[in-house]
């Protein structure tokens, strides 16, 4: 699930890759894309776009032929994942990326064990979200940063092996978009446990 690729190497179709931003480079790509669309195209002020929630969120990146093309921010609340700040760079908007990108985000949240995805949908996109199984949580529209929004939620199919406190501890240590694959810390197990702080703990006790 980490890297979803619609590859058809024999054709000229672009290669689309989606992943969880996991390096500072990828995070910068995400910020640059959001700045391009929200600040550059929609005249959103810097402090509204970079609102202080970026460092407690997960950021999803979509690449077209390796070039950063779209991003989305996911924040984790009790019982639901909030999808937000979803953008696609202008030049990639005709490729039909939005729906599969939201699907990927829903799938990501479900595999983490979240039973619900929630989002604030701009009015012009309401139909698309409804087609994707999102329902308005109530009839109270609201607005911020110059756009009118409705709150939507969708139920997710949480897989049986979604993480719980009884999940194999080393599975919980894996990169969050690759829970089904051995991670770098599992490789570290080969080094054994030398308990580098043992001496320090001994000192403390004597």
């Amino acid at each position: 699930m980490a890297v979803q690729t619609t590859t058809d190497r024999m054709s000229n179709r672009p290669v689309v890759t989606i992943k969880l931003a996991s390096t500072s480079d990828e995070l910068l790509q995400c910020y640059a894309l959001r700045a391009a669309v929200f600040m550059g195209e929609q005249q959103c002020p810097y402090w509204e776009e970079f609102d202080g929630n970026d460092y407690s969120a997960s950021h999803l990146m979509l690449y077209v032929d390796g070039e950063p093309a779209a991003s989305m921010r996911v924040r984790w609340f009790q019982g639901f994942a909030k999808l937000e700040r979803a953008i696609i760079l202008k030049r990639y908007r005709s490729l039909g990326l939005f729906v599969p990108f939201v699907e990927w985000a829903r799938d990501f949240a479900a595999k983490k064990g979240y039973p619900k995805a929630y989002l604030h949908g701009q009015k012009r996109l309401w139909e698309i979200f409804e087609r994707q199984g999102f329902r308005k949580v109530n009839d109270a529209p609201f607005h911020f940063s110059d756009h009118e929004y409705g709150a939507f939620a969708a139920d997710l199919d949480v897989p049986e092996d979604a993480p719980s406190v009884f999940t194999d501890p080393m599975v919980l240590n894996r990169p969050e978009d690759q829970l089904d694959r051995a991670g770098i810390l599992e490789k570290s197990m080969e080094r054994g446990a030398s308990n580098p702080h043992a001496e320090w703990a001994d000192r403390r006790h004597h």
Partner: protein
Amino acid sequence: MRTGVQAIDGVPVTTRLAMKMEDSLQAFAVRAACFIGELEVPFSEEFDGHDYGATHVIAYIGDEPIGTVRVRWFKSFAMCERLAVMQRFRGHNVGSLLLERCRKLAESRGCNMLYTQVLPSDTGYWQKQGWRRLVPEEMSRAGHKPIVAMVKQVDPSKPLPEVEAPESVVLRREPTLDSSGMPVGAVTN
């Protein structure tokens, strides 16, 4: 140090140098808005590998970052590039404020020449800021884009030093400045 010179709607415009990660992010956001959002430059061209060996100057109106310019330091000159001002704040001389900050910065470092590469259509703007073509009427190419090299004296009373700044070298990624291949963007894909 913040310098205040002019104001937009009564709010002073100030410039300062990026010192923290958040500052650089503001510079990058302004550039992304202008170059990627407005001019549709690809991300990988805009963020070309030179950002971590450069000085970033940022203009603010209040706390809002509205403009930026990047300065790269060479032995005989300082290169101003990636000058950007958010669309709705243009027409208030924010660009010249940023370039003046670059000039003072260069002066304080004992550097006597500012150098830049601009699109042929932008030469008028730079001429108004006191810049002149390095070689009259000459134009070269950076990848698929035609560019004009322009210079400005830091201290008008001192003669302009001899400059050696072949475009292919200053556009190459810093870690590969001494390589013999083509510069970044030279190959159209």
